[in-house]
């Protein structure tokens, strides 16, 4: 059974339909990336899975129907959504942000362990843990957002433009850490990314989205070799 199953998913902002019947599956432990131009519906796909927009259609997480439920109930199944533009709590300290990531968990001892582990992945956050999140640099805030997601001990991470606003070196560093997290913790990931070559580098499966429809799907390395995709999204 797939960890995440999406079938005929439609999403709307007011009267405007943004997703026009998406169907895809994501296997436990795998990384899938969604590619596409601006406005194709990548971010909306992630928001729809988390119930942050009005949707029709089916979303199943580890077999259970989650479509139509409240966001806060959906994420409690073990889905960590790292939103675009980070969405940190800017007037709370970095450590308070991380603790809030574990808000739905009851196992205090394990949470304390995870906090230490997260600091090992992101040593910069440990240095800055008492600083207000709003005063961190863009890169540090992005790390904080990913780290906060990890604190949930998620089975699935939805990553929306993790490279958003990051310098190339930091982006590489972040993707290296994401790779480590995936190996060590078997977290499945659904990654939306402008930087297609980075995303394809980490992903097993890839989908190409165009105006709310999937127009191509397959193994990430095959998609990466595809002539049309290369021209349109990889730029070489």
């Amino acid at each position, binding site marked *: 059974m797939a960890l995440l199953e999406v079938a005929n998913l439609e999403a709307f902002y007011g009267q405007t339909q943004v997703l026009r019947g998406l169907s895809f599956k994501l296997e436990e432990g795998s990384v899938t990336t969604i590619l596409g131009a601006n406005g194709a519906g990548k971010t909306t796909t992630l928001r729809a899975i988390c119930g942050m927009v009005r949707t029709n259609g089916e979303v199943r997480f580890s077999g259970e129907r989650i479509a139509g439920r409240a966001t*806060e109930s959906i*994420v409690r199944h073990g889905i960590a959504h790292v939103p675009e533009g980070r*969405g*940190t*709590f*800017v007037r*709370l300290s970095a450590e308070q942000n991380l*603790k*809030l990531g574990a*808000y739905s968990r009851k196992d205090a001892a394990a949470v304390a362990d995870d906090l230490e582990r997260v600091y090992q992945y992101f040593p910069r956050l440990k240095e800055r843990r008492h600083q207000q999140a709003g005063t961190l640099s863009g890169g540090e805030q992005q790390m904080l957002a990913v780290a906060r997601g990890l604190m949930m001990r998620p089975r699935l991470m939805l990553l929306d433009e993790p490279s958003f606003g990051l310098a190339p070196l930091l982006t590489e560093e972040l993707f290296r850490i994401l790779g480590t997290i995936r190996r060590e913790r078997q977290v499945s990931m659904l990654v939306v990314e402008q930087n297609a070559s980075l995303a394809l580098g980490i992903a097993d499966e890839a989908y190409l989205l165009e105006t709310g429809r999937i127009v191509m799907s397959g193994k990430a390395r095959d998609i990466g070799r595809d002539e049309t995709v290369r021209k349109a999204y990889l730029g070489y």
Partner: protein
Amino acid sequence: MDLFLQQTFAGLAFGGIYACIALAVVMIYQATDHLNFAQGEMAMFSTYVAFTLLHHGVPYWWTFLLTMAISFVGGVLVERIIVRPVEGTTVLNEVIVFIGLLVIFNSLAGWIWDYTIKPFPSPFPKEAPFGIKFIGPHDFGVIGVTLVVLAVVFLFFRFTPVGLAMRAAAQNPDSARLVGIRVGWMLALGWGLAAAIGSVAGMMVAPIVFLEPNMMLGMLLYGFAGALLGGISNPVGAVAGGFMVGVLENWVGTYVPFVGSELKLTVALVLIVTVLMFRPSGLFGYVVVKRV
């Protein structure tokens, strides 16, 4: 000098009451961006509840705690049943509901307990401790009680997971939902807490101004003034602002000849207008700067 000290400490006592109202107002403002105009009337209604409990022979401090608890539940219910349907619609909708609540609580209190002025007891001894002369016993007690309440609220928001979750929900509701916080309930909790804090203000001021359905109207204005002066975006600032307004009001009433006690309320209004004109974010408020 004695007069100065007397007026300052009496001002601090009223300041504590304003600080409670300012805090209650700011808590709801932070979560919703709206001023709850009914905050004062809810506090007045709570005080009548305390009056009834006392009337039935419940000892004062039990009454105090019970009233806070009842107000908390009442605040939660008001949010869930009356405010929630209009949340996130338009500003005007919410403001009208708040004003409606103000009228409803005011009339309800008049209808249940009638409009005659009632005495409300002070729980404090007849004389201030340590033979202090420049402060009345009730004023002394009020400062103590409000400081304790404010400290407890501060500790709650600073150190408990629920307090942290409430702050997160107010700052960024979308992200709060994404970590599993039930934002709707946090808002209801906020209303409950605000109502409980307001009830303290009501019970503390009633022995001074006497209990009647309109007793909190002026208090609410001072509370607003305090919140604005300290900074409507900063709860600690709002509390400080409340104390400052209390002291300032007494100084102006005493030392500016034409103000006296009749024009004291004007001080609050002048303060509100001045702050809004020259420093809209208040003394300790956060100026919202957006990065582009």
